[in-house]
C-alpha cells in the first residue's frame, strides 16, 4: 500500500502503520454485520444529475502563473526526474 500510494515509508514507520491499519481494518469489519441485501450503494447525496456547462472558452492562467508554485521548472516546463 505504501508503494502504491507513493508514501515512501521507512521500515519502522511501515511496521507501526501496519499494526494500526490492522486494528482499523478489524474495526471497520463491523460493516460485514450490516444487512445490505436490499440497498443500492450511495456514492453521492443530494440526488443531482446532468450538471454541465456550455462549451465555452474562458481565459485561464498565463504560463508564468501556471508555474509560479512549481519547485523545479525549465524553459516554461515542469521538470521531473526521468521515468525509469
Amino acid at each position, binding site marked *: 500500500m505504501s508503494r502504491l500510494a507513493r508514501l515512501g515509508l521507512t521500515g519502522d514507520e511501515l511496521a507501526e502503520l501496519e499494526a494500526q491499519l490492522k486494528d482499523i481494518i478489524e474495526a471497520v469489519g463491523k460493516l460485514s454485520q450490516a444487512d445490505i441485501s436490499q440497498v443500492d450503494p450511495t*456514492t453521492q447525496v443530494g440526488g443531482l444529475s446532468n450538471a454541465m*456547462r456550455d462549451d465555452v472558452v474562458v481565459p*485561464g492562467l498565463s*504560463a508564468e502563473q501556471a508555474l509560479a508554485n512549481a519547485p523545479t521548472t525549465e524553459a*516554461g516546463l515542469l521538470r521531473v526526474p526521468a*521515468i525509469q
Partner: protein
Amino acid sequence: MSAPWEPVIGLEVHAQLLTKSKMFCGCRAQYLGLPPNSNTCPVCLGLPGTLPVMNSRAVEFTIRTALALNCRIPEFTKFDRKNYFYPDLPKGYQISQYDLPLSVDGWLEFEVGDRSVRAGITRVHLEEDAGTLHHAGEIHTSPFSLVDLNRAGVPLMEIVGEPDLRAPEEAPAYLAALRQTLMYLGVNDGNMEEGSLRCDANISLRRPGATALGAKVEVKNMNSFRSIQRALEYECKRQADLLDSGQTVAQETRGWSDLEQVTVSQRSKEEAQEYRYFPEPDLPPLLVSRDQVEELRRGLPELPQAKRLRLREQYGISADQARIIAEQAGDADYYEQVVAAGAGPAAAANWQVQNLQALCNAARVRVGECKVPAVALAELVKLVEADRVSGSVAKEVLAEAFASGANLIDLVVRRGLTQVSDSGELMKMVEQALMGNQKAAADYKAGNDRALGSLVGAVMALSQGKANPKVVNQLLRERLPRP
C-alpha cells in the same frame, strides 16, 4: 514449417473531441502550437480545491459517435476516477468511465479489399486527455522529463473494439472506416501524426477453430496506418515463432518502434492493473433520456457507407468513384453541388476524381475546401460537355484556378478559349464568309472538297479562332448542298 495460427485482434482508439473548450474547464481544446503550459487554469493544472465541470458538447459528441457506431445508450451513466501516478496526470487520477459508460454494444462495418467485415464495438466512453512529456535528448538516457499541461483535460473519447479482427490488414481498414465516421460526424480531425487520433491494439494467437484466447499482448506507439499493420504483422510472426518453438507468449505491453520495425517489451508498469477505480464524487451522474437520444439520432448526418451507396444509385457512378468522392462528407457535398449546378453526373465524377482530386492530393487540401467553387467546376464541366472547351485546355485552366484562386470562368473567357458552337451565331459568320468567298463556294459546289477547307478557315478567322470547327464544317455543308 509451422502450423497455422489465427490472430485475434482488437483495437482501442482514442479520439480527441473537436470541442471549443476542455472536458472539465474553460481552457481551449485546441492546444497545438501554443507556448508550453499557457493553455492551463487551476482546474486542469489539478491545483488543490479545484473541481471539474462537465462540457455538455463533449457528452453530445460522444453520444453522436456511439449512435453512428450502432451502440446502445444506457439511461444512467457516471464517471469514475482511474488512479495512478504519472507526471502528465496532474490530479493523480484520470476522470474516466469504468463500469457504466455512455454507450455499449455497437458495431462497425468496413471493407478489406473486396470483403465487407463487421467488427463489434464494446463501448464508447468519455474521459480526459493527459499532458505531454518532453525529454531532453534520448528518452532512455535523459535524466529528467519536462511536462507541458496544455493538453491535460482535452476531451478524449475511447472507442473499444471487440477482438473481432482476424488479420493484421483488417486493423488499418477498421481504423480507416472509424476515422472516416468520426470525421463525418465532425467530432475528430483524424490527425494521427499529431495524436488527435490514437490507436492501441490487443493481439493474441490461437489455433483456427479454437475458442479460448491466447495470452494477450497490448501493442502501443503506432501512429500511422502503415505502422499498425507492420506492428501487428511483426507480432503475429513473433508470437507464432514463440509458440512453434514450444515457448509461451507473455501477457505484456509492447511498444512499436518505427525506426527498428520491431515491438519492444515496455517494462511492465508496476501495479499495472491496480487503478483503484471508484465513482467520481465531484460529478453527478448523467441521465440520458430516450427523447434526447432520439433527437441526437435524428441529427446524425448521412454516414459513409450509406453515402457511397446512394451516390452510386443516384448518379450511376462507379464504386471506386463513390469511394473516393465520399472519402469525406465535404467532398461528397462538393460533388453533389457540381451536379446540382447542371454538370452531368458522370462527367462531374470524372473531373472531380481524376483532375481536381489529383490537384488536391498534391496540395494536401480537401476537395471540399479547395479554391475552386463547385459551381465553377460545374460550368467548366458543362463547357467541356458542350464541346466549347477542349479537355486539355480545361485541365490547364482548372490547374491555374486551383493554384491562384482566380475565377475559373473569367480565365476561360479572358484567355479566349470559349468555343463558339452556337449555330445561330456561327451561321451569321458562315453567310459573311460566303459573301466574301463566292469563288470558293462555287468550287465546292462543283465538287472541289478542298474549297470547303478555305471556307472553314474564313469562318475561323472571322470568329477569331473561337468557332467550333466541327460545327462550322457541318453548317457549311448544309448551306452548300451538292446536287
